[in-house]
């Protein structure tokens, strides 16, 4: 009996210790972490980075992007800087949840060092104070970036302020099958007329890309991007959002599934576009249509275009966790990612097709030449042509409100 009690006490002690340790256990910081990486010269940062492991969390939903990271970036940073890059899948809310949980648990060293982020994720990470910075001015290759460009230096109307490093620049494109829709709609009115004639062939997803589409409609309804520019304006939102919902309600009966269901992400939309169920799909990357045709997923007749009122252009970025264990190594990796070499390779449509964040005027002439010689896109308009129809992102609160109100007004939640 006494032995049994002792065994029980030991078990409880063991379990309690594990719980206490897991809830608030203090971990010893690595010695180099103590040094303020921001006050070090770049050579010292590179030296400190050597031999470190960087945990990068990024969206891994595209085989071409994964191949670029696994087969090019990973070996390159290992060979040149002695950094082991470990890549884990996760985006947006996964990153926010992971860092939120670590901060709530008081964990001193984060599991994440570097994260691929933008827009609402940047806003939310700043909201909870999970980002390290400002650090981007330490990167030697940052001199090639035009931070004055509002499509690069501003992320959803928020200044990056050195807390995230621009990595790529894309513009939303609507993709259509040119055999089925030789003259695709160019604005709201034309879209409504088109879907009335061809019900069920158009929809938008219930995620980031669909919300970008709603933002474009909202800007158009409001009278242009300048009306909603700047910080979130409750009064303007209340004025224009009901008009947007009226329009969507008008559109709804002619959408895929009569607008009673929306694809959860663009991947199922692409799938339905590929098998002919949909005539249209969308992408936040204007080069994706070429990628997907090259992969054999989309038909040769697939084309990307932007409406006459324009589509949103934005950049995506690399952020470093406030409690990252290897900030120096994360900065070295980020610096490599914005090097002319890595950016040039990334912009090749056969590799990824992601727009560069480097300013051609700031690049050395030989790199300007190399960028100019990159093969063009076959299924999307030239980037310069799309730039003329580029709309800026809205403040993140617009997207958060649109997501909530879309559920309420259109989905009846």
């Amino acid at each position, binding site marked *: 009996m006494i032995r049994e009690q002792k065994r029980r006490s030991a*078990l*409880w002690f063991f*379990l309690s210790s594990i*719980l206490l340790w897991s809830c608030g256990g203090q971990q010893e910081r690595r010695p180099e972490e103590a040094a303020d990486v921001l006050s070090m010269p770049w050579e010292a940062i590179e030296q400190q980075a050597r031999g470190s492991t960087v945990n990068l969390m990024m969206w891994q939903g595209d085989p071409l992007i994964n191949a670029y990271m696994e087969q090019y970036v990973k070996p390159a940073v290992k060979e040149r800087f002695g950094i082991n890059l470990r890549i884990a899948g996760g985006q*947006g*809310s*996964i990153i*926010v*949840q992971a860092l*939120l949980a670590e*901060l*709530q648990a008081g964990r001193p060293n984060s599991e994440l060092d570097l994260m691929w982020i933008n827009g*609402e994720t940047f806003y*939310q990470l700043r*909201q*909870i104070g999970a980002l390290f910075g400002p650090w981007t001015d330490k990167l030697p290759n940052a001199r090639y970036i035009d931070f004055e460009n509002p499509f690069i230096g501003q992320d959803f109307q928020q200044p990056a302020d050195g807390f995230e490093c621009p990595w790529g620049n894309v513009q939303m494109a609507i993709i259509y099958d040119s055999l089925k829709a030789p003259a695709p709609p160019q604005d709201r009115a034309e879209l409504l007329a088109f879907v009335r004639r061809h*019900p*069920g062939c158009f929809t938008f997803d*219930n*995620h980031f890309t669909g919300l970008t589409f709603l933002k474009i409609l909202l800007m158009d309804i409001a009278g242009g991007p300048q009306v909603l520019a700047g910080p979130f304006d409750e009064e303007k939102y209340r004025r224009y959002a009901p008009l947007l919902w009226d329009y969507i309600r008008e559109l709804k009966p002619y959408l895929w*599934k009569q607008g*009673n*269901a*929306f694809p*959860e992400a663009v991947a*199922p939309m692409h799938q*339905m576009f590929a*098998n*002919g*169920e949909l005539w249209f799909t969308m992408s936040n990357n204007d080069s994706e249509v070429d990628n997907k045709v090259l992969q054999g997923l989309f038909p040769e007749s697939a084309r990307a275009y932007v409406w006459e009122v324009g589509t949103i252009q934005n950049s995506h970025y690399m952020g470093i966790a406030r409690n990252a264990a290897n900030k120096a190594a994360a900065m070295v990796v980020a610096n490599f990612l914005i090097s002319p070499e890595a950016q040039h390779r990334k912009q090749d449509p056969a590799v990824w097709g992601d727009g560069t964040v480097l300013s051609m005027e700031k690049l050395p002439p030989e790199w300007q030449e190399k960028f100019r010689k990159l093969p063009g896109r076959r299924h999307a308009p030239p980037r310069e042509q799309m730039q003329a129809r580029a709309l800026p992102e809205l403040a993140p609160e617009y*997207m*958060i409100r649109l*997501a*909530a109100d879309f*559920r309420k007004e259109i*989905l*009846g*939640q």
Partner: protein
Amino acid sequence: MFIALAVLPLLLGLGYAMAYSLGLVGLLSEGFTLAHWEEVLGSAFFWRTMAFSAWVSVVTTVLAVGVALGFVAAWPRVFLRGSLSLFIYFPLAIPAIVMAFIVFQMLSAGGLVSRLAYQLGLISGLEQFPGLVNDYWGIGIIAAHFLMAAPFFIIFFANLYENEQVEEFVQLARTLGAGARQAALRVAAPLLLRRAFPTIVLYGLFVMGAYEAPLLLGRQSNQMVSVLAIQKLQRFNLGDIPQAYVACIAYSAIVLSLAVWLLGRNGEERLKYQGSGGRGKKV
């Protein structure tokens, strides 16, 4: 030991969720509040979500149990030996998300069945194919879960049939003049159902909390509860996180109460059955 390893972590998790839902923890919390509970429990959509989850769970379980019972009563030995016994295990090895994709590829308007119907001249265009996925009644979700549940129950009932020596009772009934159908319906099925009841209830609860298949095959206006909770947790407002915890706690409380009530009733009935000289054993 069981309490320490299984119950304690669950209670700690629920405790944390409760604290979060009341605004007591969380980086953005502003102190104690009942607002999140009022918001969720006062929302008609939450209760519609609960009802839809229960609908999918009940229909899936009833269909799978019915079909499995029918197969086992008709061919009790086939699923225990021979090549069919191996084949029946195959669907169990398929993860839910893969099964959801298979159903999507089969039943969507651009899917295999629709194309077959087109080739056979049953429809003249993809748009004429009825909505079997992302539909109002959750047909796609039910189909995906049925394809996973039916083999499970077939294997389960076949083993039960042998271990509980149901065949002897069937033969006895036949000797006493019952027909094959009567013996299957009045003897084999009740015996198997009585023994399997706790497993059926637990499987039903498992389907009710499913996530992958409803995410891909469901629609946003008729959501299942786990999809709603994840949506509140991850899209896009950090201020909605406490509501996700409310949905999880309320759902857990309701299904746990239901499970305890159903299994408790079943236990009482079994005891009564034993007391009246029946052969059943207490579960």
